[in-house]
Structure formats: structure tokens, C-alpha cells
């Protein structure tokens, strides 16, 4: 029990291994309760990370099936497999599933699992908030998809342009479900971002100065800061849409002083930074993984780290490029066009850094390397089609055609999905203790790579040949037939590649080769822990001296090395160390919370509030607000164990 005298403590410094009695004692302190209760109340960042990965993948598969159905409809002109209504529901759900329920959560999965390990720490900054962010994500995804049961899925695209999405044109409840579901999901994203930012500022291992952290840290940090500023724009937009639809406010209604373009500004002020949030951490996966498979440190670490931040920063200043055709004055269009060209430059820095790393390194031709190398090509292809649309007069032709569909899939799949797959191949041993099959991995790569390019490369032609987006069918004789057929065939091949991947995962979980702590001879801290890591991550808190702690002996980066087997013990309950954000000097011993059911309870009460809002059951809204307040007060109740109160003799 913490007493008032325990305001300060000198941490005990010892040497210990993962097989020692110290490790056993730490395991007892940190492990989650077994059974259902433990499963529902765990705050273990590794469990939460895996949940994010699995849930996001499930949504990927669902979104992918939606896409395959659409590609069947579009394979030939004037088919009637789908009614226009069904098609519109499908392309809307496909978009929102992939962009919101897959693209960021999958990266949250990696970051949640890896950040404490990469940073030499034992947990995230706010473990209960971490669990909460997952539960809210899951509940919001279910909320959005429950619309299916009512046959009321949204059908106005993931971008919901008004006035088409106002009540007079779209009376069903689908739009309200989308609007409220997005506000709920936004809460998950925001608290998750908060967690990453505070963790980076507070909880790195001693010696881990800001210029030594892996690039995935830079990527996730940048994305999180960006999200803190960007997500409110879309949450607000959806909230205002909901009030226009349900309470006859007039934000978007030109007849009463509103304006349809207000929606577009708010939506894209969020939307553009968002696309960087869903690729920058994935680029970090490549920047950290590729060097391992090239047997040398990343070329130009500082330039790559800075280009990550610069990309997000400029990314806040280009949103109008989604609105070039809306009749804005040419002067403002010129500014946004130029900014959209400038933003190519930090990405160019990263591309050349990766090529240089491969060129000056010695590639190890394992599955992750194939995905990394393929990624550089896809990144470039997606980047140049974006560069083309940055030119306003050209965009006036390209926008809203399949050219943009090609562009967005090359950047989203190329820059998010391919690194994700590479990351799973690379970190699977760390997550599960087993290796994935190399043979299946290579088949996986080729089917995905060829299938993907066959599916999406022809869409550049379709766009240049004038095929608009979001049409459920097209007439023959436009020159669009062959490309559509090729795209449909490619999409099925790509889907087969995903199936191979899932088979590989399933087989490897059962029969994969058992992995040691560092099967790839990697350089970063997560490879110093067992595979999978124990609940407490590190027996002793390591002290870090360089960017590549596990390669120091071979890189000779200077005198004084990192100390991995000797460091602070911190075993008075769940504890970890807080250090200075910039230079890594230890600052405080942090007391971390254990398993708790309050995150799940808070999720339930919060979701109930949104259900009430959807059906206008105001009694439910009031009750759930009060319940949420009660849960929050319980959650935040200051406890001595967490070092938040004055101590035992005051109760």
C-alpha cells in the first residue's frame, strides 16, 4: 500500500533474465486473469493490439467481398446482377469499411502491440483508455453494420455529399446510422491518438531520445497528432448532417442560408489529413523492416523522420484538391494545386531512402522483402497518379473518373495494405512464437502483386477513357469493356492472394516453425524479448544508447552501449518508467492500472447513448449519459495504488 512517504523512491537496479525468479514474480503482477472476466477486462496492450489486427482484418474481408460483388456487376456492360440501389449501398459500405474500419485500426493494431516493446516500456500511457478505444471501435463497427439487418445501410458514398444526403433526398435511416456511427468511431480514434502522443512524450526507456526511436514511432506519432486536429472536422460534419436531417437545422440547406460546400470543406479538412494518418505508420513499418532485410540501417533516418512530419503538416493545407471542380476562384485553386505538388517532395525523400537502403545493403530474399520491394514500386505508381490530379486543369478531366479510383487504390493498398502484410510476415513470430511458411508467402506475394496490378492498373485507362466513378453500369461501345473485364479478373486473383495469406496464417498458427526471440536478426528492442513477449515485456527496463540496440556490437556507433540485461526493476506492483520526451532522462516512476471492466462498461453506456439518439429515444439518451458519467467517475476515482491520492491514513 502506497503511503505518503512513498512520494519518491530510488529504483532498484539489477541484472536479470527472462528465466529468473524475478521474471516469474513480474509475470504474476502483470498477467491478466484467465477466463471470460480476464478477457473482457484486460488492459494488456499486446492483447488489445491483436484484437485490433483481427477485427480490422475481418472488416477487410467484408469490404473485399463487397468489392468483388461490384466487380462482378461491372465486368461487362449493362449487366443486371445488381439494382442501382444495391450497387449504391455496396460501394458506400465498401468505402466506409475499408477507410474507417480497416485502414486505421489495422495500424493501431501494430502500434498497440509494438510501441511499448519498441520503446522499452511495459504498457501504453493509459491502459484502460487503450482497452476502451478498442471496444468503442468494435461497437461502432457493429453499429454501422447492424444497419444491414434493417436493410438501411447508407447509400450515398463514403463521402456523403449534401444535399443528396439530406432527409428530403435520402429519407431512410441509413444516413443517420452512418453519421452517428462515425461520431462514435471518432471517439475511439481520438482517445487512441491521445494514448500514443502521451506515451511518446512520457514513457520511453532511459536514453531513448527522440532521434533514436524507430520510424514507425514517428509515423504513428505524426498520424496521432494529425488525427487530434483533423477528426473533429468530420465528427462535426456528421453531427451537423444529423441535426439537419433530424432537427431541421440549416447548415447545408441553401434555401435558408446554409451551403452544400460547407459539408465538403469540413469533410475534406478531415479527409485529407486522414489519408496520411492511414499511410504514414505503414511507411514506418517499411522504414523499420526493410533495413533488417537489407542488413544495414536505414539510409537518411533523420530525413525520413522529418519528411514524415512534413508530409502531415503540408497535408493540412491541400484539402481543396478534392474540390477543384466546385467553382472556386482560380487563385485559390492555384495555391492548393501548388501545395499538392509540393507534398510529393517529402514522399520522394522516403522513396529514395528506401531504394538507397536496398542498393547499399545486402537483400535477404524472404517474403517480407518481396512485399517491401513491391511496395516501393506501388507507392511510386500511386504517387504519380496523385501528382497528375494535383494539376487543376487536368484534374477537371480526371476527377470523378476511374483514374482517381486507380490512384486511391494504389495508394491505399500499395502504401497501407502491402506493408501490413509484410509487417505480419515479419512480426508473426513476435506475436505468436511461430514463423509463417516461406513457400506459401512467396505464392501469396505473387498472386497479390499480379492480381492487384491486373485489377487496378487498367483503371488508369478507364479513367483516361472517361469512365465516371460510382456508376452501377455502363453502355457498350465506350472502349471500357476490356479494361473492366481485366479489372474484375484481377480483383478475384487478388482476393485469392488474400485467401492464401489467411491460409498461411491459419496453418502457421498450428504448425509453423517455433521462433526464437530474433529470427530475422533485427535491430530494434522488440527482438530482444521472447516470442511472444511475456505480459510484463521487459524484466528490467533497458537503457538505450543508439538507434539499433541489437546491432550495436556490429555497427560500432560509438562508445557506451545500450544495456538490455541490466536496468531498473520497478516491481512494486505494475510500474514502468517515465522519461523526458526529448533526451530520455528518467523523470518519474509510473504506477500503471491493472485489468478493469470500466472500459467495457463505458463503451456500453456510450453506445447506448448513440442508439438512443438514432431512434430518438431521449429517455435512453439521458439514462446512458448519467450512466456514462457514473462509470467515468468510477474509472477516474483517485487511488493510492496508482499514486494519485494522499495516502492511507486519509482513506
Amino acid at each position, binding site marked *: 500500500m*502506497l503511503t*505518503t512517504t*512513498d*512520494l*519518491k523512491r*530510488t*529504483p532498484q*537496479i539489477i541484472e536479470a533474465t527472462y528465466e529468473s525468479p524475478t521474471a516469474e514474480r513480474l509475470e504474476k503482477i502483470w498477467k491478466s486473469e484467465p477466463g471470460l472476466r480476464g478477457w473482457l477486462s484486460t488492459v494488456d496492450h499486446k492483447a488489445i493490439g491483436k484484437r485490433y489486427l483481427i477485427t480490422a482484418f475481418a472488416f477487410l474481408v467484408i469490404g473485399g467481398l463487397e468489392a468483388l460483388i461490384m466487380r462482378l456487376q461491372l465486368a461487362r456492360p449493362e449487366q443486371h446482377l445488381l439494382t442501382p440501389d444495391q450497387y449504391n449501398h455496396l460501394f458506400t459500405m465498401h468505402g466506409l469499411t475499408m477507410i474507417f474500419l480497416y485502414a486505421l485500426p489495422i495500424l493501431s493494431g501494430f502500434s498497440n502491440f509494438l510501441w511499448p516493446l519498441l520503446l522499452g516500456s511495459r504498457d501504453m*500511457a*493509459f491502459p484502460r*483508455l487503450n482497452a476502451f478505444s478498442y471496444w468503442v471501435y468494435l461497437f461502432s463497427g457493429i453499429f454501422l453494420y447492424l444497419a444491414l439487418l434493417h436493410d438501411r445501410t447508407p447509400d450515398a458514398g463514403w463521402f456523403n455529399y449534401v444535399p443528396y444526403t439530406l432527409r428530403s433526398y435520402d429519407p431512410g435511416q441509413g444516413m443517420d446510422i452512418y453519421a452517428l456511427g462515425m461520431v462514435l468511431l471518432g471517439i475511439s480514434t*481520438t482517445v487512441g*491518438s*491521445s494514448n500514443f502522443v*502521451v506515451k511518446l512524450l*512520457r514513457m520511453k526507456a*532511459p*536514453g531513448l531520445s527522440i532521434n533514436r526511436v524507430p520510424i514507425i514511432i514517428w509515423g504513428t506519432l505524426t498520424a496521432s497528432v494529425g488525427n*487530434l*486536429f*483533423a477528426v*473533429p472536422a468530420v*465528427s*462535426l460534419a456528421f453531427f*451537423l448532417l444529423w*441535426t*439537419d436531417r433530424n*432537427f*431541421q*437545422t*440549416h*447548415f447545408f*440547406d441553401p434555401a*435558408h442560408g*446554409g*451551403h452544400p*460546400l460547407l459539408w465538403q470543406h*469540413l469533410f475534406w479538412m478531415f479527409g485529407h489529413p486522414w489519408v496520411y494518418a492511414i499511410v504514414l505508420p505503414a511507411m514506418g513499418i517499411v522504414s523499420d523492416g526493410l533495413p533488417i532485410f537489407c542488413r544495414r540501417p536505414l539510409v537518411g533516418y533523420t530525413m525520413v523522420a522529418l519528411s514524415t512530419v512534413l508530409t502531415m503538416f503540408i497535408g493540412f493545407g491541400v484539402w481543396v484538391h478534392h474540390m477543384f471542380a466546385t467553382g472556386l476562384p482560380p487563385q485559390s485553386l492555384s495555391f492548393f494545386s501548388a501545395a499538392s505538388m509540393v507534398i510529393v517532395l517529402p514522399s520522394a525523400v522516403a522513396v529514395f531512402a528506401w531504394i538507397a537502403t536496398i542498393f547499399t545493403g545486402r537483400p535477404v530474399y524472404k517474403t517480407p522483402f518481396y512485399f517491401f520491394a513491391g511496395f516501393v514500386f506501388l507507392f511510386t505508381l500511386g504517387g504519380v497518379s496523385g501528382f497528375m490530379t494535383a494539376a487543376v486543369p487536368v484534374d477537371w478531366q480526371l476527377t470523378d473518373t476511374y483514374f482517381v479510383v486507380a490512384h486511391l487504390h494504389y495508394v491505399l493498398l500499395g502504401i497501407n495494405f502491402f506493408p501490413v502484410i509484410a509487417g505480419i510476415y515479419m512480426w508473426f513470430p513476435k506475436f505468436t512464437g511461430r514463423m509463417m511458411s516461406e513457400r506459401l508467402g512467396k505464392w501469396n506475394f505473387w498472386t497479390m502483386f499480379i492480381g492487384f496490378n491486373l485489377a487496378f492498373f487498367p483503371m488508369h485507362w478507364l479513367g483516361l477513357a472517361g469512365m465516371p466513378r460510382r456508376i452501377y453500369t455502363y453502355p457498350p461501345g465506350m472502349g471500357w469493356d476490356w479494361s473492366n473485364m481485366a479489372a474484375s479478373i484481377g480483383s478475384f486473383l487478388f482476393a485469392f492472394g488474400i485467401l492464401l495469406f489467411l491460409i498461411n496464417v491459419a496453418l502457421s498458427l498450428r504448425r509453423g516453425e517455433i521462433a526464437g526471440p530474433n529470427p530475422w536478426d533485427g535491430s530494434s528492442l522488440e527482438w530482444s524479448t521472447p516470442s511472444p513477449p511475456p505480459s510484463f515485456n521487459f524484466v528490467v527496463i533497458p537503457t538505450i*544508447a*543508439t538507434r539499433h540496440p541489437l546491432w550495436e556490437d556490429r555497427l560500432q*556507433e560509438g562508445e*557506451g*552501449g*545500450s544495456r538490455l540485461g541490466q536496468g531498473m526493476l520497478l516491481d512494486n506492483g505494475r510500474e514502468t*518508467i517515465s522519461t523526458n520526451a526529448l533526451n530520455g*532522462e*528518467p*523523470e*518519474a*516512476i*509510473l*504506477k500503471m492500472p491493472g485489468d478493469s471492466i470500466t472500459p467495457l462498461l463505458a463503451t456500453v453506456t456510450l453506445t447506448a447513448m448513440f442508439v438512443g439518439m438514432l431512434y430518438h429515444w431521449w429517455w435512453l439518451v439521458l439514462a446512458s449519459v448519467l450512466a456514462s458519467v457514473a462509470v467515468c467517475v468510477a474509472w477516474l476515482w*483517485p487511488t493510492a495504488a*496508482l*499514486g*494519485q491520492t*494522499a*495516502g492511507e491514513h*486519509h*482513506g
Partner: protein
Amino acid sequence: MAEVVGMPAALPVGSVRHKASGWWGMWTVIATEASLFAYLLFSYAYLAVQSHGGWVTEMPKFRIAAPNTVLLIASSLVLYWAETGIRNGRRGRLLFGLALTFAMGAMFAGLQGLEWHNKKFGPSDDAYASTYFITTGFHMAHVVGGLVVIAALFLWGALGKFSAQRHSAVTIGALYWHFVDVVWLAVFVTFYITPYLQAHHG
């Protein structure tokens, strides 16, 4: 580049003033909520510009809003006084200050409600009205949230949870309340003052 940091002597344990993670967390909350209000005020400005004159339905009056603003700012000063109290271990001052802040905040909310009631327009009349009610409504929601925070701090303070060294919840809660105050100033200037500046420019 490769120096190792020195191993520390005694380190603080747990939440000690600004060394609480929750304090940094509250700053991220402030960043995101401030952005929310920035987008709301952007919406006001955008629609105002697009309307090419005739945006304001009814020129706002200061009769309630001005004293209400002063009241809210004063409540922040009271809360600051309460916080310095507990920093010096003065529990009584903390509790008194929290209670007074609560009363002032509640009065602000009540007066704002009165002002809403007195408005001759409702949220569904036109875009200006919608923007006014939604923006002040969001602010009101944050005020109510703040009142809950203050009430919780009072409860915990009364239970003896806080001391001169351990009172990070108070610091964090106070930070939130001051933020709500600053937001009000931005809302006040936008809705109540800018229409008169525009009127002068004709």
C-alpha cells in the same frame, strides 16, 4: 550520440503535479476540442461570407451575455485560487473554491439557458440560428461536463484524497475548466462582437 544517461537517485512515484500522464492527456483533449470549436467558428465565418450580407438574423444583445462572460472568467480565477490552496495543503480552501466555482458555472449555464429562451429565433429558422444554437450548445455541453468534473473533484476532496503533493486530478480538472473559459471567449467574440464590427464597416 552514444552516451548513456545517468542512473537517477530518487524519482517521484506516481502522479506528482505536472508529472502526471493525465495532465499531458488533458492537453491532447484540449487540442482536439479546441479544433472542434475552430471548425464550428469556421462554419460560422464560411456561411457568413457566402451569404453576401444579411447573415445575422437578429443582432445579439449584451444584456445577459456580457455579465455571463465576466462570471465565467471570474469562476476560472476562483478555481485557480482553489488550486493554489491545495498546492499548499489548504484543503478547506480547495473545497470552498470548488463549491464556489460550481455555483458560478451553474449560474452561467442557467443564464445561458435564459438567453436561449429569450431569443426570438429557434435553431430551425435559418442557418445563422442553427449555427448560434449548435455552437453555444456545444459550449454548454462542455460547461456541464466541467461542472461534473468540479463536482467529482469536490467529492474526492471532501473524502480527503488530495494533499499538497498529490492533487493531480485537481490540476487536470482545472486545466479543463480554464479551457472551457477560453473557448467561451472565442465564441463570444465571434457571435457577439463581430456582427457589430461588420455593421460599422457597412
